[in-house]
């Protein structure tokens, strides 16, 4: 080897593989305004659709008169439920086994519900004409409070199923009941509570919020009558699911539906579901024979397409007097809105909520969730979290603080005492989940040392004394949260969507010149997949990441997959990518052996080449092997160098983290300043530390928004009062705190590269951490639990209730 030959390390660095802070390839187009989002699509003859929506939360629709709207010059058609009935599409199935009105059929069940769809030459005409659709309503009493939905005299919401005793998830006990779902061992949990030294019980509310990506939901449908083919561009986090569901609903054969998700401006769960706008655009295109675009505005987005949370969680912990948890119970009422359009794996009506035992070794536990209907928008998506995981994490992390308070223990010490210990992994929880790996004490210890936790508590104590003496009007809170997520849905034995197992896929083709393309069943909405998947391939195959094109979102070319949500891209498609690489590598080894005239076993892998063991100067690089794969394959071998893998994960992955937050609150204004936020995340193997850090910054900012101000609020008449950015809190750069990030690395033992997924961890851990910090600030005044959101006004009211303004 001469001096010019790069070392293995130098060659590895050039690949920009796993562990490299590779700059994102997507950015080149985005910084120049050359992304291609749905609303950028312009087709010849394209029409625009817009909805007439209900001003009422609950009303009978007596009459719809479209005459005036249809007469507006430029209006091509007006569609109502009656039109849709002719193609059997007035209602559509939901992902949760319910049905949902596409357009109001006989009555409306939530404010802003879709009533008519106007199609016109341009978007202004469509919007104008939508105003001219005349609808006669008869107002009905409505259900806004989910805790009253199952009252004996509650109004009947869903007349279509009012007599059905059995729903998609078992027996229904009331006409406004969706399902009851239970997990764990009730008898064991009850026994633990009967014997407990100390117990706590608190109604912990996670209000209705909305993911609110900056780009709203939108689509362009184009039906080719001659070919009988539908092309549908849309903001789809799961394009293949949309194709299959679209085929089942529309009866258009699946091979004649082309679904394309171009660049997506954020999703956070909002773009998983199928919405009436998509169905109406498709029908409108079939009816008119022209492409039809539907773009929702922000008010429509916040008030109709998806919501998240809305869980009322009565949470109990049982404990010994020295602070060892012996039992956990949680009874939850889940507000599902007017239709059960929850985006969960089909068998899990409350998602993975039974991760509620969190990071703690709890011997006995039981949860029960009742879903109820209300006069609110349907949805129930996972807003930057795996299915219902952030609700579970919030409940357990608040309950831990409340129990610590009752025991007179420090909340961090109480957690430390109950965390699952390193030697217990793989750990089977009381709910049966098998946590793959973890080193919790190390993470929490590192977090506490980094922020000098002890000193913070000393400072807090001094401040509390000063407050009592009347020397300050500021109180200080220290929030601690330790979370464990369950992501990467999922093993097919646990998870399917409408019967389709939740595997995912990667197909890699290496071209003759040694570059390649990788197509996947997932779909980036900002996560940087085009950058990171290429890094996995770079490390696995020794091909520079820059020489790999990553493509997602076109169902004609991408292998089937279930899409991107629930932090499943890296755990599932990332694994598929590695496995496909390994198939290619095995073939490459045979080709190299043939070229070098040695046995396969005489070769060893070295970064980007196979070399002869003991004779490293005899080697074939992947570039040479790629050429040979199309030029001189061994006799009997198929030419080409490509592979596909459908990966059905053996288990979920369980990322975890320890977060600490310090807040200072002015009790006279409620103004809350986040002095410090430290987030330690363990997502297993780290593919691109720059992207991981960016994901954590973003997730923490969303968590900050949720904890400190977000709520989709309805008044008593069912009017949604927070449906624009005037009223719905999205943090600006001014409010957003500075983030400190840190990590430990505990690889997943069952994942081919040990990665666990990270995008949602900061939301799951961040929300309880902020809430614990605010709650912690008021503990010394006798407060036990203050519900989110902790905006200034509510915080002022909480302080007022504690008598500090007297």
């Amino acid at each position, binding site marked *: 080897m001469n001096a010019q030959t790069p070392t293995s390390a130098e060659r590895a660095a050039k690949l920009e593989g796993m562990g490299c802070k590779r*700059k994102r390839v997507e950015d080149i187009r985005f*910084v120049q305004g050359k992304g291609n989002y749905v*609303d950028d699509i312009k087709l010849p003859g394209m029409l625009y659709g817009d909805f007439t929506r209900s001003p009422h939360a609950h009303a009978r629709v007596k009459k719809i008169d479209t005459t005036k709207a249809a007469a507006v010059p430029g209006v091509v058609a007006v569609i109502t439920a009656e039109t849709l009935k002719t193609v059997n599409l007035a209602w559509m199935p939901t992902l949760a086994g319910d049905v949902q009105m596409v357009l109001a059929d006989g009555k409306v069940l939530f404010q802003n519900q879709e009533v008519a769809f106007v199609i016109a030459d341009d978007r202004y005409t469509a919007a104008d004409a939508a105003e001219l659709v005349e609808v006669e309503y008869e107002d009905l009493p409505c259900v806004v409070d989910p805790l009253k939905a199952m009252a004996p005299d509650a109004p009947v919401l869903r007349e279509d199923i009012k007599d059905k005793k059995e729903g998609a998830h078992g027996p229904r006990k009331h006409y406004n009941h969706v399902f009851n779902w239970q997990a764990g061992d009730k008898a064991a949990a009850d026994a633990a509570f009967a014997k407990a030294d100390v117990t706590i019980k608190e109604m912990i509310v996670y209000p209705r919020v909305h993911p609110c990506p*900056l780009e709203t939901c939108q689509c362009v449908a184009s039906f080719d009558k001659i070919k009988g083919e539908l092309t549908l561009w849309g903001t789809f986090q799961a394009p293949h699911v949309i194709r299959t569901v679209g085929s089942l609903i529309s009866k258009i054969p699946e091979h004649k539906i082309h679904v394309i998700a171009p660049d997506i401006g*954020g999703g956070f769960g909002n773009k998983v579901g199928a919405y009436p706008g998509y169905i109406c655009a498709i029908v409108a295109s079939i009816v008119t024979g022209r492409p039809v675009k539907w773009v929702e505005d922000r008010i429509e987005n916040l008030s109709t397409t998806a919501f998240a949370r809305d869980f009322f969680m009565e949470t109990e912990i049982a404990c010994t007097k020295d602070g060892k948890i012996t039992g956990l119970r949680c009874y939850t009422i889940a507000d599902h809105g007017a239709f059960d359009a929850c985006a969960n794996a089909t068998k899990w009506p409350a998602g993975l909520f039974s991760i509620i035992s969190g990071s703690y070794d709890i011997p006995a536990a039981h949860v029960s969730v009742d879903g109820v209907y209300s006069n609110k928008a349907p949805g129930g998506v996972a807003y930057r979290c795996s299915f219902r995981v952030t609700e579970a994490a919030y409940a357990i992390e608040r309950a831990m603080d409340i129990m610590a308070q009752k025991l007179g223990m420090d909340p961090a010490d109480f957690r430390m005492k109950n965390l699952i210990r390193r030697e217990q992994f793989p750990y089977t929880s009381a709910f049966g989940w098998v946590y793959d790996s973890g080193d919790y004490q190390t993470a929490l210890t590192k977090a506490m040392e980094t922020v000098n936790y002890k000193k913070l508590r000393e400072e807090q104590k001094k401040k509390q004394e000063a407050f009592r003496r009347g020397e300050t009007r500021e109180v200080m809170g220290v929030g601690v949260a330790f979370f464990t997520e369950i992501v990467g849905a999922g093993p097919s034995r646990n998870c399917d969507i409408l019967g389709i197992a939740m595997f995912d896929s990667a197909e890699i083709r290496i071209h003759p010149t040694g570059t390649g393309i990788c197509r996947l069943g997932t779909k980036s909405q*900002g996560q940087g997949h085009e950058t990171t998947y290429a890094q996995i391939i770079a490390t696995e195959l020794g091909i520079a990441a820059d020489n790999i094109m990553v493509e997602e979102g076109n169902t004609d070319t991408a292998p089937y997959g279930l899409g991107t949500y629930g932090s499943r891209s890296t755990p599932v498609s990332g694994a598929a990518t590695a496995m496909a690489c390994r198939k290619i590598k095995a073939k490459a080894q045979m080709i190299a052996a043939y070229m070098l005239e040695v046995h396969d076993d005489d070769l060893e892998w070295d970064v980007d080449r196979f070399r002869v063991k003991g004779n490293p100067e005899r080697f074939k690089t992947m570039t040479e092997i790629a050429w040979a794969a199309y030029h001189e394959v061994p006799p009997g071998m198929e030419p080409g160098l490509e592979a596909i893998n459908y990966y059905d994960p053996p288990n979920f992955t369980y990322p975890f983290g320890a977060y600490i937050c310090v807040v200072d609150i002015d009790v006279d204004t409620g103004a809350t300043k986040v002095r410090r936020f430290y987030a330690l995340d363990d997502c297993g193997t780290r593919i691109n530390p720059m992207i991981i850090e*960016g994901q954590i910054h973003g997730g923490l900012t969303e968590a900050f928004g949720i904890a400190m101000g977000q709520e989709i609020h309805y008044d008593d008449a069912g009017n949604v009062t927070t449906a624009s950015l005037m009223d719905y809190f*999205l943090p*600006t750069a*001014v409010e957003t705190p500075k983030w400190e990030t840190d990590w430990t690395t505990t690889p997943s033992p069952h994942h081919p590269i040990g990665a666990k997924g990270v995008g949602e961890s900061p939301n799951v851990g961040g929300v309880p951490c902020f809430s614990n910090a605010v709650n912690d600030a008021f503990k010394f005044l006798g407060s036990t639990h203050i519900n989110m959101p902790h905006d200034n006004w509510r915080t002022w009211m909480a302080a007022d209730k504690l008598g500090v303004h007297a």
Partner: protein
Amino acid sequence: MAKSKVTMKVNGKAVEELVEPRTLLIHFLREQLNLTGPHIGCDTSHCGACTVDLDGKSVKACTMFAVQADGADIRTIEGMANADGTLHVLQEAFREMHGLQCGFCTPGMITRAYRLLQENPSPSEEEIRFGISGNLCRCTGYQNIVKAIQYAAAKIAGVPYQEAAE
């Protein structure tokens, strides 16, 4: 609806078009001029995804009629790159500092940052945060956007970029 004639300069080029009086500037730019870089993210002038530079000011193009921009000199993200086609220092900075994720707020954010640095070539972190508070981002948490603007400011000033101490 009767149309009015507007003339303006967009990204250095003279433009003469007929528009309906009610056409919003953002729709005019996106649909009539095919400049789809500026985006639409809200209905209430809060999000700033539609920000363009108009006669030396950052303007939310969703809150102005195209006819109001008659005679104006407009620059959108499409006109941000250098004359030789290389990236503007802000565009480079956003990539370098990982100041974007989904890319939807990015054109407005960069366009706003461009004007901010014209107004204040060496802003403090606080001034940057205030200066971009009319532009919402749902992905990045702003921290790396702030860094990107600091990086660009340093490069324009010809001084080495130094990451502020945490």
